[in-house]
């Protein structure tokens, strides 16, 4: 039933694509993209493979190594020296769309971005584009420590494809955005790493390609700068009408920025569609949910649930040693990976006398109306007693919060994730 519905939806979508294609609305189209890598050392074997490949080529035959190759799953032992990092990737991106590309480590996300940004070529297939693509694969590319900040703005801008004139016209804004005005004529090698990243991101942020490719830039920089960066990204995609491809592990960030998503798994697209469905598909595939059980650990299981306006954490423990207090710790993180709040019984002055069972039992914690803004939140769990920590599971739980507070759409990078009870008086 569900499948039928989806098929129907797909049909509708594909026909609407046809209509839109006439309007030139599809800005990027990937067709059958595959990428093969050779595993192990590049050494003596290479020459013989090269010669063999060349011998097939001059006789007009197909590359013999294209037929072989294992599916890209790093945890299994394969039989072949060749592996497909990507296999038959097809997708389309429309103008102004923010596409999230999500997947586990090694799913092929970065390879796909490398192909998109022309750093490496696909083994088969093609990508067609109606706009310039610029990537923020890693900011600060080509920075030269001996040159000043100002000189590096020009150099880095030119590497990213801007002309000198374009850069000069935006120089003031770039310097202002970076917040490095004071040091702008100092060699970059004297900069702190944070300053270098700020400067580099500032240059990239003022690029004006039709398609921007972003890979985990959010992981760098301090909180204030992250805020700026995400705000800028939202500007880019919303107001500028520019197309953004965003790659991240952080589901909460993806959810808050993207409109559509594709899920990669072992080099294949397993889902393409709305961002909410994509995220739930990813979470389902990776068995990330709101409950988790653990083997061989003092903490047996933990589950987190939204009940009306409260969050309820329910955990079972079974310890070999006597615990003076079953100390269950938790921290809730927002879409930028920043902690929103957290706690444990010791922090909240619970006494040993408050708990009855010292070896095994159940913990029930109610977080009374934390007034979180709608969205995905990640939770880390620790378990121990007041003396020692025995167990930790970082970011093991993802929970979707909905309708906890009634508020218009907010940009959480600006006002935060918690909406406290407010009492307005206009006197």
């Amino acid at each position, binding site marked *: 039933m569900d499948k039928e519905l989806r098929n129907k939806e797909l049909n509708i979508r594909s026909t609407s694509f*046809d209509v839109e*294609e*006439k309007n*030139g609305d599809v800005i990027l*189209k990937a067709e059958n993209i595959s990428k093969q*890598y*050779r595993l192990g050392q*590049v050494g003596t074997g*290479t*020459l013989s493979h*090269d010669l063999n490949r060349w011998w097939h080529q001059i006789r007009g035959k197909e590359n013999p190594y294209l037929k072989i190759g294992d599916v890209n799953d790093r945890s299994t032992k394969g039989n072949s020296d060749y592996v497909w990092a990507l296999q038959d990737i097809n997708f389309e991106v429309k103008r102004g769309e923010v596409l999230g590309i999500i997947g586990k480590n090694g799913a092929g996300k970065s390879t796909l971005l*490398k*192909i*998109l*940004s*022309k*750093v*490496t*070529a*696909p*083994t*088969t*297939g*093609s*990508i*067609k*584009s*109606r*706009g*310039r693509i*610029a*990537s923020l*694969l*890693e900011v600060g*590319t*080509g920075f*030269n420590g*001996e*040159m000043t900040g100002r*000189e590096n703005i*020009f*150099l880095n801008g*030119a*590497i*990213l*494809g*801007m*002309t*000198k004139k374009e850069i000069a016209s935006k120089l003031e804004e770039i310097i202002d955005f970076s917040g490095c005005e004071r040091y702008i004529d100092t060699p970059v090698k004297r900069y702190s790493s944070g300053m270098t990243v700020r400067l580099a991101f500032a240059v990239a942020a003022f690029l004006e390609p039709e398609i921007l490719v972003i890979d985990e830039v959010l992981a760098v920089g301090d909180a204030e700068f992250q805020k700026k960066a995400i705000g800028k990204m939202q500007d880019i995609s919303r107001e500028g009408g520019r197309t953004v491809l965003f790659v991240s592990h952080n589901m909460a960030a993806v959810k808050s920025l993207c409109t559509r998503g594709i899920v990669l798994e072992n080099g294949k697209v397993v889902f393409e569609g709305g961002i909410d469905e994509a995220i739930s598909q990813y979470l389902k595939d990776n068995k990330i949910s709101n409950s988790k059980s653990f083997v061989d650990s003092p903490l047996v299981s933990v589950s987190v649930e939204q009940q009306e306006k409260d969050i309820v954490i329910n955990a079972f423990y079974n310890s070999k040693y006597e615990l003076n207090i079953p100390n269950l710790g938790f921290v809730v993180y927002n879409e930028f990976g920043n902690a929103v709040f957290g706690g444990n019984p010791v922090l909240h002055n619970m006494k040993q006398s408050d708990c009855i069972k010292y070896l095994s039992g159940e913990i029930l914690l109610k977080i009374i109306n934390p007034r979180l803004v709608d969205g995905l939140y990640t939770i880390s769990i620790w378990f121990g007693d007041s003396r020692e920590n025995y167990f930790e599971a970082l970011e093991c739980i993802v929970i979707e919060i909905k309708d906890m507070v009634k508020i218009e759409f907010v940009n959480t990078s600006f006002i935060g994730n918690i909406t406290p009870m407010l009492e307005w008086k206009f006197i």
Partner: protein
Amino acid sequence: MNHSEKKNNNWLFEITPKNKFFTLNLKEVWQYRDLLFLFVKRDVVTMYKQTVLGPLWYLIQPLFTSITFTIIFNNLAGISTGSVPPFLFNLAGITIWNYFTACLNGTSNTFGSNAGIFGKVYFPRLIVPLSIVISNLIKFGIQFFIFIVFYLLYYFQGAALHFNPAIVFFPFLIVLMGILGLGLGMVISSLVTKYRDFSYLIGFGVQLLMYVSAVMYPLALIKEKIPHYAWLVQYNPLAYVIESTRYMLLNVGEVSVIGLIYTTVVTISLFLVGVLIFNRTEKNFIDTV
């Protein structure tokens, strides 16, 4: 079906597994001309940062090499340079030879030393070797200036020196040298990405090449002294450029028009082969480097 086929025409660009058989991509290089200029500027500005002598290093190296050559090849081995002071004879050869080796050494490591930046952003890769050839041209200019200074020094001391009118073609020789270094460098840089052996080869290969390029002796001398091995020098396109340089600047030796035509043909073919291999490499080198 018809629609989508028609649609294919207005894509801005297409990323495909392989480049066309031969493409210079000059349009793209032109779009990135500012980058070319900035790379040149970076090379020149940062070359001798944090050194006490700074750009003087541009001068020290050729001067001391010339002095060494003069002592060993002219004073000790007794190679005659005619009426021209041996020091000036050697300096002329070394100056133009240095330009070639600087271009070759710089470009032959294009992929290796830029793997970091090539692995992150795309721009026409040809920009990098081009920038090396151009920034070396500036270094060559400084070294050539020093040659002029010593030329005048000798001239006012009464040495019998005069240019040959053919000096008007000297820029042509410089361009030839640059393209030769670029072409060979591009071939080697592409091979090095897969087979590191070539980076070792280039190290001592260049040294050996100097001995068969008529840098420290006149072309006529080798024909006269060891005619059996003279073909080594006669088939070497570099030898003609160096011999012609001395002919133009110092009016010694001979200029062989056939030799220069031969050199030009070799240079152009090497350059085309270089571009061909370079284009094939640039698409996938990041997977093998």
